[in-house]
């Protein structure tokens, strides 16, 4: 086998061409990994969110909390079921509110109960104080606070017909709750004149009683409810990332083909410049397959350097906060870009594919160079 050092030095000798090709691959991989990081961050908001012992009770067929509503008497029925530890009755209203950038988006306002925090132990009040009942006070998630107008402590935010005071900021550990505003249940229900619950969050004692309770609720003809686990409920919304995924793969595939051509160009030029060298290697006893392998490896090396650089370009995107629409709940979902080792591996694999596809034809040409004629060329 021809030592890799040969390929490496060849790349260094043609440093301008190498740099430009590497740069092209790096930008391609960088943009691909960045879009995947966005998709990953959004999907991650829905996956692994929610408590394993919680059930979300929705009106049959409504699919989301924002579509669901039922009478307040149902809470008592559920509370008395055996295996149920606690129930939080909540109401959801969507308001159209401007982002800091000016254009408006839909936000979920959740009327919370005294059990809301207890049933969601991951969610912490990180700034300010807890809201007080009856005073039209709200808590805002940190993400909403950073992204929307009137979201700082002390601000007044217009909800419905009145102004509400922001008294605290909560952090929902990158779950969909991070895209919400929380007010007192009674205040929200009164403001919108809706004496109903949108959903009941039910905490069960353990997994067996959870299955039990779930069955009892679905079977109860009075309730007419669906009872997904809180984790399943959020996972069912992961399709929100679908349009972004399509965009990511579209950009990735088109740019990959373009990069293949660019790598091919560079490798053909490398073959042409080194015709005599290749012939010399053959004379020294290296076989055609050695040459083929050597040029393939050189192309792979070129692309992988680009791929690694591209992953580096994408790295600063990690943690950047952005938002899009969840058309299932019809409201804004805030999320963070997530660049993970797995994504970087995808980026490197992607560049390896570009290098292999782009390098194959030139390498085959190099392997087929007729020795005698090649030695006579005067380049």
């Amino acid at each position: 086998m021809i030592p890799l050092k040969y390929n490496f030095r060849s790349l260094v000798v043609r440093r301008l061409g190498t740099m430009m090709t590497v740069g092209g691959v790096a930008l391609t991989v960088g943009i691909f990994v960045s879009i995947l990081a966005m998709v990953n961050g959004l999907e991650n908001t829905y996956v692994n969110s929610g408590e394993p012992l919680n059930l979300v009770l929705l009106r049959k067929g409504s699919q989301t909390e924002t579509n669901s509503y039922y009478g307040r008497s149902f809470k008592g029925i559920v509370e008395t079921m055996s295996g149920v530890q606690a129930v939080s009755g909540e109401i959801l209203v969507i308001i159209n509110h401007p982002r800091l950038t000016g254009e408006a988006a839909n936000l979920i306002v959740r009327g919370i109960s005294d059990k809301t925090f207890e049933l969601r132990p991951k969610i912490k009040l990180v700034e300010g104080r807890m809201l007080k009942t009856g005073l039209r006070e709200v808590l805002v998630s940190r993400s909403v606070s950073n992204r929307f107008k009137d979201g700082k402590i002390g601000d007044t935010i217009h909800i419905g017909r009145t102004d509400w005071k922001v008294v605290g900021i909560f952090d929902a550990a990158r779950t969909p709750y991070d895209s919400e505003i929380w007010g007192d249940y009674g205040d929200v229900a009164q403001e919108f004149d809706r004496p109903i619950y949108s959903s009941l969050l039910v905490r069960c004692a353990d997994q067996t009683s959870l299955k039990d309770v779930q069955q009892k609720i679905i079977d109860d003809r009075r309730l007419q409810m669906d009872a997904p686990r809180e984790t399943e409920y959020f996972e069912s919304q992961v399709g929100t990332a679908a349009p972004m995924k399509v965009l990511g793969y579209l950009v990735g595939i088109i740019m990959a083909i373009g990069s293949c051509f660019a790598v091919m160009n560079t490798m053909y030029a490398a073959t042409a410049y080194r015709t005599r060298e290749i012939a010399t290697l053959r004379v020294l006893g290296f076989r055609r397959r050695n040459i083929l392998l050597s040029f393939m490896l050189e192309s792979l090396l070129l692309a992988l350097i680009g791929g690694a650089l591209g992953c580096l370009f994408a790295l600063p995107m990690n943690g950047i906060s952005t938002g899009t629409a969840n058309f299932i709940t019809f409201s804004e979902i805030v999320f963070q870009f997530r660049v993970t080792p797995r994504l970087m591996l995808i980026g490197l694999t992607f560049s390896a594919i570009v290098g292999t596809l782009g390098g194959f034809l030139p390498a085959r040409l190099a392997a087929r160079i007729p020795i005698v004629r090649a030695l006579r060329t005067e380049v």
Partner: protein
Amino acid sequence: MGKAECFWEYRSQRLPVSAPPIIRLESTFFPKALKYLRLIFRNVVRNRRRTILTVLSITMSLFLISTLKTLLDELENPPTTPESARRLFTRHKVSLGVMMPLAYREKIRSVPGVEDVTTFQWFGGIYKDPANFFAQFAVDADRLFAIYPEYKVDDAAHIQDFIKERTAALAGVKLAKKYGWKVGDRVTLKGTFTPFDVETTIRGLVDGGGSENTYYFHYDYFNELFNNSGQIGTLSIKAKSAEDIPAVIDSVDSMFANSTAPTKTESEKAFFLSFVSMYGNVRFLVMSISTVVLFTIILVAANTMAMSIRERTAEIAILKTLGFTPGQVLAMTVAESLIIAVAGGLLGSLGARFAYGSVDFNELSQGFLLRFVVRWETILMAVAISTFVAFTSTLLPAWSASRLSIAEAIRRRGE
């Protein structure tokens, strides 16, 4: 015969050796440019494989940029008609999730400047499986076609059939095709935000203006199932003329400003744009991707031009010996790059226009995009980008080559 010989033969036959004057570059270059065209063209096709690969690489990139630009165009500037420019939507000020009293419909009808108004209630029901998503609206059957004249029904008699029957429905032609519906079929939509299902009978097929992927049924029927609660999410208004729109917005919103259900009225375009802005900053995303792609093309094109020029260093020296000025050499190289880049730009953007011509984006996007047509201005933009790429990618390598002293250039001989 080798390429170099070709070049020499061509040079000796077509261009008098004494022809190119050394002076007066600016004033004489353009009239004489045609003379050089063949020389430039020969250079373009000289390394055919490289040219093709470069053109293809640029093609892919500009295909992508054209796609993204078109996405932005169709989202932000959907095609308008004189009819759509006269329409407005009214919803509850809080959000689309909160409903208004139905009585608003007749109050709005009496507002000066309003020609007609219909309920336009989103239903969002499920047909058999949640995956079968399509838009469904409960409307005033007898007003729909006055406000949306661009909707065409397969048979004029079907319009009356639809209006007459309380549970009648109109199905978009594309929906009908997808689900195998015929006129007379019964379709049940399971309610999501409502506790009831609607059971309808298709009485006609409708096409045009986005209706091809939409399902319409009676608001009266919806209201009846809703315990006659008289709640409406959206009202669609037609103004007497586009000029009346600002006044109508003003009158409607101020009429309800102090009521329990204040409204927000917007032109149809603004109403759709609010959905687009819900998606987040699409424009920024598209711009960022396009900028990165642009840099990629510049790198690809610059690499090609650097390779070509390096191989031709000796030749450039000969051209200069023959009396070509550095400016002429430079211009010829830029022209060569221009041909390659513009070819890629045209192939990419026209290719996109052609490729998307046969795809039904309205169905693919579940009605979110009305259409997906690469506009001529996008193709023009692709050519402009290619031109920019040609200049930026060539100037540095060509400039250094054109400044090389003849003796040194001949010595280099294509290293």
